């Protein structure tokens, strides 16, 4: 494609061409209307002057007959700026007047017509145009009275000439301007296309140039850059996930395989086989759980579940999960204290939020249960409205997490040394973080002195408060 061809195919150029066409048609109509009106005005003036002359001449004829009329005509015809005047006999012989070279048929009938003529005193001049009225007088005399309308012709020239040139100039300049603007637009678009292509080719770190003028291209570039930022984060997350899968799924898979091989090599009795098989099933269940958690985190991070969001009461969700875990907590020596002040309407996915809260309570149970038998500790679970947000707090009295480690524990598969020996995938908090993020909330890990306090804040859903709360799903 030639560069001109590309220019012409751009939207900007097409818009400019369409705009020019509309503008030219409009300007043309205005000029035509003006011209027509001016012409009409000039014509009317000529008609009025001719009528006045005619009345005067007829009066002279009535008063003094043909001889007086000839006298008056001769006097008038010589005056400067005089109109056209001619008196003829029945046969067409001129008796008086200032017109030569009249086309013959003009006098053969009374009435108005437009003619070209030559004045008798300027016989050499080129013929001019005039509006004339022919009147038949008694005695078969004919009187022609006219007014030069060369003015009208001049006016027409004055209006049409510049108008045509103006329009031509307008179109030429318009197209030139259009090409110029389009080329500029095309240049920036081309830059964007080039960057996009390099990004598509795999270089996700590329960003569109922002000129700093704040125009629509800058805004587009800024929002595209924000989009690229998000994509890069997602891709980084994906890479992290695949790295983690490689590590944390292959490790248990290796264990699984080793155990099966060991059983093949050493198992003698039926019980040995049975035990090995059961261990294999347990191990694979653990793998499935890890895999499910990973998928769930990935889905939550991708934001796919946001379509399924409904209004729900977080206080109710928290209370429900607390109810599920209360007996277990009690059994391991923890008093689960529940303080909920509902309703706390939030737009969300009940299942995901319930899973997130259950992970948090599960962690509290795992890591803060008292070691010494007979002693008891508390886990405080609260859901309340704080500063226009729904705040869910889970505070335990366990060992807590050192401040330096806190940001790390939210990452996938991170398990602190202290927890390595306990069951778990290391995905619990990552899932919580992903779910909280999906709901537009924040997750904070704080010191409960002693113990860990986890604070989840979710935006309240003010709109649609009259919708029935989602009871299932």
């Amino acid at each position, binding site marked *: 494609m030639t560069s001109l061809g590309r220019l012409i195919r751009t939207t900007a150029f097409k818009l400019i061409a369409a705009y020019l066409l509309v503008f030219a048609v409009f300007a043309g109509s205005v000029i035509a209307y003006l011209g027509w009106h001016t012409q009409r005005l000039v014509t009317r003036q000529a008609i009025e002057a001719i009528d006045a002359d005619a009345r005067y001449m007829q009066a002279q004829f009535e008063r003094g007959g043909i001889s007086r009329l000839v006298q008056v005509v001769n006097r008038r015809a010589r005056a400067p700026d005089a109109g056209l005047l001619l008196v003829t006999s029945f046969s067409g012989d001129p008796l008086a007047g200032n017109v030569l070279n009249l086309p013959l048929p003009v006098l053969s009938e009374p009435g108005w017509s437009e003619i070209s003529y030559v004045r008798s005193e300027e016989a050499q001049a080129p013929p001019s145009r005039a509006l004339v009225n022919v009147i038949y007088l008694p005695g078969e005399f004919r009187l022609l009275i006219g007014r030069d309308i060369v003015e009208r012709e001049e006016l027409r020239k004055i209006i049409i000439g510049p108008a045509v040139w103006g329009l031509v100039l307008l179109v030429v300049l318009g197209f030139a301007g259009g090409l110029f603007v389009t080329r500029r637009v095309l240049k920036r678009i081309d830059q964007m296309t080039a960057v996009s292509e390099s990004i598509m080719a795999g270089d996700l770190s590329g960003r569109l140039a922002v000129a700093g003028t704040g125009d629509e291209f800058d805004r587009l570039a800024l929002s595209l850059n924000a989009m690229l930022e998000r994509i890069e984060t997602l891709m980084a997350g994906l890479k992290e996930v695949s790295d983690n899968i490689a590590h944390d799924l292959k490790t248990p898979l290796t264990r699984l395989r080793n155990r099966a091989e060991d059983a093949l090599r050493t198992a003698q009795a039926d019980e040995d086989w049975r035990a090995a098989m059961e261990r294999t099933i347990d191990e694979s269940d653990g793998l499935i759980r890890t895999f*499910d958690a990973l998928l769930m985190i990935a889905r939550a991070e991708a934001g796919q579940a946001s379509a399924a969001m409904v209004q729900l009461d977080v206080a109710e969700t928290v209370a429900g999960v607390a109810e599920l875990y209360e*007996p277990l907590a009690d*059994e391991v020596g923890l008093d689960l204290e529940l303080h909920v002040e509902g309703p706390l309407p939030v737009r969300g996915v009940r299942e995901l939020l319930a899973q997130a809260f259950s992970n948090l309570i599960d962690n509290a149970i795992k890591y803060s249960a008292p070691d010494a038998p007979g002693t008891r500790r508390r886990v405080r679970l609260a859901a309340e409205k704080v500063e226009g947000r729904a705040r869910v707090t889970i505070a335990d009295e366990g060992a807590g997490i050192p401040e330096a480690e806190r940001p790390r524990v939210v990452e996938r598969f991170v398990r602190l040394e202290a927890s390595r020996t306990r069951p778990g995938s290391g995905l619990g908090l990552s899932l919580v973080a992903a779910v909280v993020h999906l709901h537009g909330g924040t997750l904070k890990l704080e010191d409960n002195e002693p113990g860990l306090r986890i604070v989840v804040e979710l935006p309240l859903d003010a709109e649609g408060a009259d919708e029935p709360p989602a009871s299932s799903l």
Partner: protein
Amino acid sequence: MRLLVVEDDRDAADYLRKALREAGHVVDLAADGEEGLAFAREGGYDVLVVDRMLPRRDGLSLIAELRARGDQTPALILSALGQVDDRVTGLRAGGDDYLPKPYSFSELLARVEVLARRGAPQAADTVYRVADLELDRLAHRCTRAGQEIPLQPREFRLLEYLMRHAGQVVTRTMLLENVWDYHFDPQTNVIDVHVSRLRSKIDKGFDPPLLQTVRGAGYIIRDVAR
């Protein structure tokens, strides 16, 4: 019971047929959606076990087609897609239960048996009875040997579900789904503690014990004497 298994993976299908036959059921296999639909339309099955992703016609469309023809045979959907929204679309298409892959056979068997007896008269009764244990669903009362047993609302619902399926194994996941309406996997076995609390209320001091643990599967409430 007569079961139809629609599953395109040969190994998985053969395993299911073998295991379901061992459990005493009659099993037909169909390898794709169209074949499955043709089999199912002949009727006479108690439960359909349908894989979600099938060649020629996917599982959801198979079930939707049957439902459109007025066939209400209970259907269990098996699927590798196990997230909440997948499950919702599965049930919306007319499936009666949804089991994500990979599943344990005991889970599948328990669900198939519960589905098959879904329409059993017991379900509509206002009073459930197992031996001398009685649960009055209208009065919200539970008695054993005439002695009133106070139950928390959740314990009541748990017992109600167990007794509705008296004589059938119900798994922990089934309890979590049907009593608590949660479809995720709590990492710790929270259900066990709830069940043991319930057991201490209804079985302690009475004979015989009615609420039993089925190893590797779940729980069953039944009258052992019968």
